[in-house]
């Protein structure tokens, strides 16, 4: 996006906002899918996120890059969504696998690794999945995760550890061998 378009977006022009949506919505939808359980939830989070992005446009510092600011809002919104749905339960007790919802991604081939990893993520309990996403995919530290979720660093580490154990049980052995 050009500086002029970003400036117009901050001014609240609809055309500029459309441009922001067109550029960032697909990537942010992928983020939403990672954090949520089903397509409907992911779309709801995406919708709320872009409304917040528009309403909070005045707080955006035009000297800084737009993408991280948008991604930050999307992640916040996803976490809040899970909290609101009371799905985000972060305890030290072991949790069971989620039953994956049948949903194929038209953009991704069904047998594609990414599609299968998405399905694996969806089988994780919300707490495990959220911490795993924040730490592994979005590169947040345990301290930052603790602040995000309002938990202790120890709980964050524990959730991550349990998530990885669960993922190991779900990932086919040949993938791990390939990576190794």
């Amino acid at each position, binding site marked *: 996006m050009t500086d002029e378009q970003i400036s117009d977006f901050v001014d609240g022009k*609809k055309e500029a*906002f459309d441009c922001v*949506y067109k550029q960032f*919505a*697909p*990537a942010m*939808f*992928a983020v939403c*899918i*990672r954090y949520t359980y089903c397509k409907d939830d*992911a*779309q709801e989070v*995406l*919708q*709320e996120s*872009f*409304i*917040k992005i*528009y*309403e*909070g446009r005045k707080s955006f510092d035009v000297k800084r890059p737009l993408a991280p600011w948008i991604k930050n*809002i999307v992640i*916040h*919104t996803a976490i*809040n969504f899970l909290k*609101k749905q009371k799905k985000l339960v972060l305890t030290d007790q072991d949790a069971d696998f989620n039953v994956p919802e049948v949903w194929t*991604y038209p*953009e*991704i081939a069904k047998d594609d*690794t*990414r599609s299968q*990893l998405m399905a694996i993520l969806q089988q994780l309990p919300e707490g495990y999945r959220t911490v*795993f996403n924040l730490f*592994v*995919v979005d590169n947040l530290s345990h301290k930052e995760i603790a602040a*995000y979720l309002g938990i202790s660093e120890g709980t964050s580490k524990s959730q991550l550890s349990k998530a*990885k154990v669960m*993922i*190991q049980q779900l*990932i086919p052995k040949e*993938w*791990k061998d390939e*990576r*190794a």
Partner: protein
Amino acid sequence: MKEHNTIDNLFRDAFDGLSIMPDASVKSEIDARIFVKNDKRRAGFWLFFVGLGISVFALFAGLYYSTNAYHGESLIGTQRLAENDADVRNSVDTKKQIASTSNEIHDAVPLSSETSDKEMNVLSSINKQETSTRANRTTTTTTSARAQVTQKIQSSNVQSNDSVDKKDEIVGIDHLRLRNISVFDNDLTSDLSIDFNQRGSSLTKPTAEEISTSSHSFAAFVNYGFESTNSNREQVDYNQLENAQIQLRSAAIKVEYKKSFTSVFGWNVGVGYADHSVLQKGRMTTWDSVITQSTISTLTPEVVYVPSYYAATTRYRFQQFQLGLGMTFSYSLLQNCNLDVSLGSDFSLGKLTQLDTNTFYESPAFSNFGMSLYLRPAIEYKVRKYSFLAFGQVNQTLVSQIQWSFIDRRNTGFGGGLACRYYF
């Protein structure tokens, strides 16, 4: 550990740069909520100010009415006294004419003689014949006189003695004393304000849904109101108080907690403090004797009786602590604008202080407990977790803490004010 790192890399690589197109309905829904909402917000904003304007107008109209009702009464009293002056002058002139032509007046009004002993006799005879001659005096002095002669006649008689001593002088009718019209201006200030602590910014800004679905809220109300109640009994036995009126001007502050149990209904509980300025006013009729003396030395001075009207007031300060319980109905008018109607009861404890010690009126009885009903329609304009309300308020006292013997039931009070509500 190595396995864990492998998993990390697997997911990082897989999701890096991943893009999935959402449904087109998402964008249209976002547009509908952002760009249509803005128009509705604007309308809600103006609706709030319309409500605010109506509330302020109602408040000042009430105050104007309340203030001018009293000054109007004072003017009536003044007019009556002016009529008195004219009546007295007419009656004196008439009496001069009558005295110069006949002795009939002596039959009607016993007058003073040339000696002081006789004057005293005359004065005592005036007292004795007071009742029998009242009709004649009334006819002589004014046709508008209708109340009884009071004990004040006695003090006027004493003044009459002094006047009688000064023979061959024209004694002016000194009834300035009668013009005891006091005008009461209430200085009660309505300059109440509340500082609301700024809440620290939360992790994310709440959405419209978060606001509308918040079931708990705290609100602070500041309002100003008035009430005017007229006497609804005969005044004969009440120190001759005529057209008695009680006016209350109230400045109140209230903090209220509200809990919604459905999307439209909720209950509220609040505590408040109200400072009422109470004005008890009315008109008393008294009769005063005044001495007039003929310019013709052969004639004796005469006593005439004139009615006077005391438009007097007594001020009280009434402080109240209130506990309120009520129900709230909220109806969404626009995206950010609600109609919020509360109905409930206030239970109160209070203290009454009489500010005017010299008063003609009986002090009211006072009880510790009071109860009133209130109806409070408000226009609420929401801004994130906060909302601002402009409201009107109707109060009906059910159990009055202040009880005047000449008032059976207090009238309805009206008021209005502003409030700020915080949802959590």
